[in-house]
């Protein structure tokens, strides 16, 4: 696994090769990864993998012609061949008159987000963590499945205008699903930078307890219910809203809920959605894939459509500031917010439940997909801990339900937001609270 210094050197070397190959401007992105994952199912470890790779992707520019080539052969010969291919692709590409050139040089310091204990989280330690997550289920006669992963990555970017940035990161992720008797299932997860934050036994206990409580679920009719969504479920909605609606490209092309509605109310004032890679607990990169510094962007500000994210291309094209949200070239998606956070409220999760006369508690969703991008209409299933709330208390488990719901309409009925937030998902992830929504439509059941 190469370190940041070597990553930087590789990126600089690639830029030089690309210029020598005839590029007028050049950019190199180095991505080195060391990934390890221990998976378990049936109360045993059944897959256990590790892989290391280092890839260099080169963007060569001739006039407004652009070519991109990538390789994981990072010796000088491999690198040079890749740069020649990028320059050759640029020579053959048609002009893009709107291309403003590569962004100006940027060589600010970006602190590594690396934990020594995470780096040392080896196969033996991961096996012990897996065993700890399995223990509560095994004790209860249930079956545990899940995984515990450790990622170490180095990202370095250089360009011929002086950009020279690098950052190393570590992340840990653990998930556990407990399957008990009579259809009961439970789930718990952890995402973070520090392995010290992972309490594997506690996760296992939460999952096993939820599986016990969700045994023998009742069937509920489809319909519109008040819901309390746990962070895993909220993260799905927040990320779909951000990814489909909050890129300047989607806004400019009329594909976004923000198109023609910037500054207008789109959700309840209780909803403030931001993209913020700079927050202390974030795991993502603090620069984008052009090496530009990421900035905090308020996507939805107290219910009002705020600012979409941009990159150098779309900033130049629209006259907006570059917010630092470029994806790796070539990029047909436009800039994207990858470090989404929903601002906290002041409620306790238990208080949200206590305020519901009759509703549904959702632990998480499964296989959510978008049916209508402009309304962010989503469909998916509930999974691993769906409960009926009656008179302020979680009373009975409910069989999983399918929902079909415009996300913004649901967020417009927000009645409460918890103070507690959880980081959910991989890479940048989403930092989200519990939400109480007055109206959420379930359209089908499995019977």
């Amino acid at each position, binding site marked *: 696994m190469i370190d940041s210094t070597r990553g930087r050197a590789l990126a600089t070397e690639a830029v030089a090769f690309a210029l020598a190959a005839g590029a007028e401007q050049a950019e190199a992105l180095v991505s080195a990864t060391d*990934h390890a*994952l*221990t998976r378990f*199912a049936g109360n045993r*470890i*059944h*897959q*256990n*993998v*590790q*892989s290391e*790779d280092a890839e260099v992707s080169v963007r060569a520019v001739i006039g407004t012609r*652009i*070519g*991109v080539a*990538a*390789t*994981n*052969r990072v010796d000088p010969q491999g690198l040079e061949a890749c740069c020649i291919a*990028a320059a050759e692709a*640029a020579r*053959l*590409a*048609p002009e*893009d008159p709107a291309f403003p050139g590569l962004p100006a040089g940027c060589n600010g310091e970006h602190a590594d987000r690396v934990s020594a204990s995470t780096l040392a989280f080896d*196969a*033996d330690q*991961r096996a*012990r963590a897996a*065993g700890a997550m*399995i223990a509560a289920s095994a004790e209860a006669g249930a*079956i545990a*499945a*899940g*995984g515990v*992963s450790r990622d170490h990555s180095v990202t370095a970017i250089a360009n011929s205008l002086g950009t020279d940035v690098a950052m190393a990161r570590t992340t840990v992720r653990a*998930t556990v*699903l407990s399957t008990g008797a009579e259809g009961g299932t439970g789930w718990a997860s952890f995402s973070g930078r520090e392995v010290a934050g992972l309490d594997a036994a506690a996760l296992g206990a939460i999952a096993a307890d939820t599986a016990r409580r969700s045994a023998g679920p009742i069937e509920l009719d489809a319909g519109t219910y008040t819901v309390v969504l746990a962070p895993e479920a909220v993260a799905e909605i927040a990320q779909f809203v951000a990814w489909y609606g909050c890129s300047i490209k989607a806004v400019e*092309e*009329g*594909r976004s809920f923000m198109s023609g509605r910037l500054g207008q109310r789109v959700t309840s004032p209780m909803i403030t959605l931001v993209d913020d890679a700079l927050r202390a607990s974030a795991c993502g990169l603090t620069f984008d894939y052009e090496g530009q510094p990421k900035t905090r962007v308020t996507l939805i500000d107290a219910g009002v459509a705020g600012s979409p994210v941009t990159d150098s291309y779309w900033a130049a094209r629209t006259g907006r500031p570059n917010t630092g949200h470029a994806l790796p*070239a*070539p*990029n*047909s998606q436009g800039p994207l917010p990858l470090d989404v956070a929903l601002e906290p409220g002041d409620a306790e999760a238990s208080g949200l439940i206590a305020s519901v006369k009759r509703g549904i508690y959702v632990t998480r969703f*499964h*296989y*959510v*997909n*978008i*049916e209508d991008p*402009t*309304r962010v209409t989503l*469909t998916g*299933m509930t*999974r691993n801990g769906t409960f009926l709330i009656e008179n302020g208390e979680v009373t009975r488990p409910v069989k999983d339900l*399918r929902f079909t719901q415009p996300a913004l309409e649901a967020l417009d009925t927000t009645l409460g937001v918890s103070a507690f937030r959880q980081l959910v998902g991989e890479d940048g992830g989403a930092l989200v609270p519990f939400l109480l929504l007055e109206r959420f439509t379930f359209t*089908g*059941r*499995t019977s």
Partner: protein
Amino acid sequence: MRSFTQECLDAATAAGATYADVRVTDSRTQALSVRNGVVEGVSSGSSFGFGVRVVADGAWGFSASSEVTSESAVRVARQAVAIARASATVGARPIILSPLEAHTDRWSGPCGTDPFTVSTDDKLAVLFDADAAMRAQDGIAIATGGMSFLHERTTLASSEGSFIEQEWTESSAGIAAYAIGDGDVVTRSYPNSHGGGCFQGGWETIVALDLAGNAPRIAEQAVQLLAAPLCPGGTTTLILDGSQLALQVHESVGHPTELDRVLGDEAAFAGTSWVKPGDLGTLRYGSPIVNITADATVPGSLGSFGYDDEGVPARREHLVRDGVLAGFLSSRESAAAIGLGSSGAMRADGWARTPLVRMTTVSLEPGTAGTLDELIADTTSGVYMETNDSWSIDDKRLNFQFGCEIGWEIKGGKRGRMLRNPDYTGITPAFWGSCDAVCSPSEWRVWGLDNCGKGEPMQVAHVAHGAAPARFRNVRIGVGR
């Protein structure tokens, strides 16, 4: 390469592996995309590396590296064994692999004109012609087109004596036209959504698509769709085109018959299955006219190979025969767990990933209902839907909901008015049980699908599905309306 793979196997067995295999993969890619007359990307890539998979102390370990050297062969093989030994500390049970004869062989997929020898200019010309043809239609806001190409060469060697070299080429292309109205975006794609048409083959497969020739039709339909009424809610007879049926087969037959899912190995991520091991030969999956096969020998299909990534020879088997569950997609380990031989469905996404049970070409076999026009003529009332737009299915692969790009009412055996945002929902066995007609072989074709995600870390498999249009009774459409 044989000396390198042998170094890996020797190091693994010396470290204590009771079984080992090594896969070396060298791949090359190219992708081009245009949008509204402008090139969005011309890119190429290459990736080279190897992965060592071992059994030690009765458990699995896998390690992979992009450094293909003698030093790393030993280091990575030893690391795989160390990982396996860590695996063995938690609930290990002996790993039993179904028997397999050792093979020494070479296999290559079909390729007429190597797409990597076709100039970038020629490729972009095809995309620009189609792009211009779409944008010639008034009302088209966005026109997109893309192509991608892959050449992959793999070497698999195992401690049981197999040494198998394979190489193949894949070519994909597609176009899409978007019409955007008052808060609405509609899309029409050709030849399919989600990447277009995907084939094992060369440049000739792209030429045969005639993207420019089909562009005016989909552009016109996109504009018409914007003004079309929403698909109404209700329960009706549904006819699906082959491309949508391909995804229906993928989600509701392919995934639930993957034996690793059935046995619970993917429970925490992708989910399990409504199918149980003991259902083989007895479970009523669909109506008696439903026959579904898994076939890794279909020429030109993304789901074809000579041997899977465990070295099991490609084969064709029924998953559903006359409506009854007849088989599983399986690996040597999962098949042995239920007393069967492997179906030859272990596939890995490149050198850095351990193989998983994946689909090959999983197809709804053609029926006898004639052409699509004849099937519509035989239908009193209902809806015909074409081309997938969205998909969702639960963790047991029972409760699904699909959106399509376009629909038409069927009245009196005739295709009537166009319908916008059509979708439908159902429960897997009830849906397949309601299938009462499948079109004839003349309508059957293979649809490649290059975005099948499964496993952790996520692996993307290239698979395929053969299908002809088919009819289903009493299906709920227009969900939530």
